[in-house]
């Protein structure tokens, strides 16, 4: 058994989603190889070779992979996949765009967002926004899987020493070209791996009011999340959306402010260790999953909490 893991990276650093996906690979068992495809800079290959548990690092450093274009990456992964029993990618926007394309080209199924490994061919995954958990078994000769990062322990970034091998490029297939991107810049921790998340909903009322949450987040060293309603209303960028169709988070502490707790939102955060809800409606469904609920006007409670955190303890 040998597993190929597709690394999530930004051409200079390996993202934490790669480490949790490697954690899932370790649960399956067997030799693990890591593919880093991109137009790579700096010391990324050397760093990736140090990740624990990876015996071989495949480096595909070619310009056609610079922007994670699935149409260009798929032929590369299809070619490599034939030597493996499993191919794993993180369930990120890149992994989700790529792996089904690879699967169809290989004529195999793909299993989305696994949260558990029962056996090397049997996995658990949430369906219906996490309101049910399916145990599924694959009979394909190559098993293609995307991995939900919050469900697995990350492997250590350093301590390993993989053999490095370069891989020839498969060229630009000419179907799709990258035009540009608008990345949300932030000094705060990355949402899906943050220890604390402060999330705002429609109740926040405006993008200006999100500053209240930012002040609290900065005090706590937290990432900022949001409900769909807050993103739809333009209070905050799309990449902050938590939920069934947004990001999945499971921090140690999730503070939901002005969020009602629709099932689609709960799907993205209900595995958080401790959930706090601040909402003025005592019947809001969010209180049913909150460990600590505070029925209050957020415009009063949030500044008060930020202020209290400023006081020496």
């Amino acid at each position: 058994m040998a597993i190929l893991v597709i690394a999530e990276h930004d051409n200079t650093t390996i993202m934490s989603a790669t480490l949790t996906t490697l954690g899932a690979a370790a649960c399956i068992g067997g030799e693990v190889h890591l593919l880093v495809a991109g137009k790579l800079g700096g010391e990324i290959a050397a760093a990736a070779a140090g990740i624990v548990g990876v015996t071989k690092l495949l480096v595909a450093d070619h310009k056609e992979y610079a922007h994670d274009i699935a149409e260009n990456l798929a032929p590369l992964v299809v070619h490599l996949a034939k030597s493996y029993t499993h191919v794993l990618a993180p369930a990120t926007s890149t992994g989700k765009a790529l792996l089904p394309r690879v699967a169809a080209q290989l004529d195999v199924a793909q299993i989305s967002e696994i949260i558990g490994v029962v056996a090397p061919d049997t996995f658990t995954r949430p369906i219906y926004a996490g309101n049910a958990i399916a145990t599924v078994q694959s009979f394909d000769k190559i098993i293609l899987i995307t991995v939900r990062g919050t469900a697995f322990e990350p492997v250590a970034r350093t301590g390993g020493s993989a053999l490095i091998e370069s891989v020839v490029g498969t060229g630009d297939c000419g179907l799709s070209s990258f035009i540009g991107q608008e990345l949300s810049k932030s000094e705060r921790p990355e949402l899906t791996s943050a220890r604390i998340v402060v999330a705002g909903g429609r109740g926040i009322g405006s993008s200006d009011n999100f500053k209240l949450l930012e002040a609290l987040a900065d005090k706590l060293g937290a990432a900022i999340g949001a409900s769909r309603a807050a993103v739809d209303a333009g209070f905050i960028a799309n990449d902050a959306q938590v939920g069934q169709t947004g990001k999945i988070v499971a921090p140690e502490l999730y503070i939901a402010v002005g969020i009602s707790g629709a099932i689609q939102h709960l799907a993205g955060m209900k595995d958080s260790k401790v959930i706090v809800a601040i909402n003025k409606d005592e019947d809001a469904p969010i209180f049913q999953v909150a460990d600590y609920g505070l029925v209050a006007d957020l415009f009063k409670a949030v500044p008060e909490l930020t202020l209290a955190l400023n006081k020496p303890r």
Partner: protein
Amino acid sequence: MKILVPVKRVIDYNVKIRVRPDGSGVETANVKMSMNPFDEIAVEQAVRLKEAGQASEVIAVSLGVQAAQETIRTALAMGADRGILVVTDQELQPLAVAKALAIIAGRENPDLILLGKQAIDDDCNQTGQMLAALLGWAQGTFASKLVIADGFATVVREIDSGLETVRLKLPAVVTVDLRMNEPRYATLPNIMKAKKKPITSLTSDELGVDLVPRIKTLKVTEPPKRKAGIKVASVEALLDKLQNEARVI
């Protein structure tokens, strides 16, 4: 320009899902069914392209039980021109759906196929990408904006780190995200008109496609429940709990 829009019949997003006690799946009897919300957005976008004079025909396609015809009718009431229903009682998985759609695309020759990014029942997020692969077409996934001009589709994609713009050669597959548009409600006159629009019914045999699932569902269970929490009376009490009981800050 011809547009194909695959629409899936799913349990309505407002329904509280119940897992069958025998672990065989979720309860679907006497449960409200609707069009997958993402597919409504795809239909809306296709109809807007038609209204803008950019598309000549919008075809809604569904695979599923006979009742999936209602989902196609909804698309027709929103403004699609005709429907294709592939009737099957088979459990459907994305690869099989993509294969059937690829055959239909081969017959209909659309310039654009607009799908939802994800079906809210299986939460797979695969079909569009698989379809694009089978056709050898470009794919614009998780699109929040779509502009068609000069044989290309310019797509703004919602990615984990923000927004990305790509340019796709047509024909192409585009899967839509939530913020592409706000779908219209079908008006009563349009619902009446939709009853007269044609729907072609096919079987998987006629299509020559193997719909047998590749992945076996062994069981379906309830997710672990969270323990009920408590309400605190003040910010001070909250802070005390977080620091001294939960010890998370």
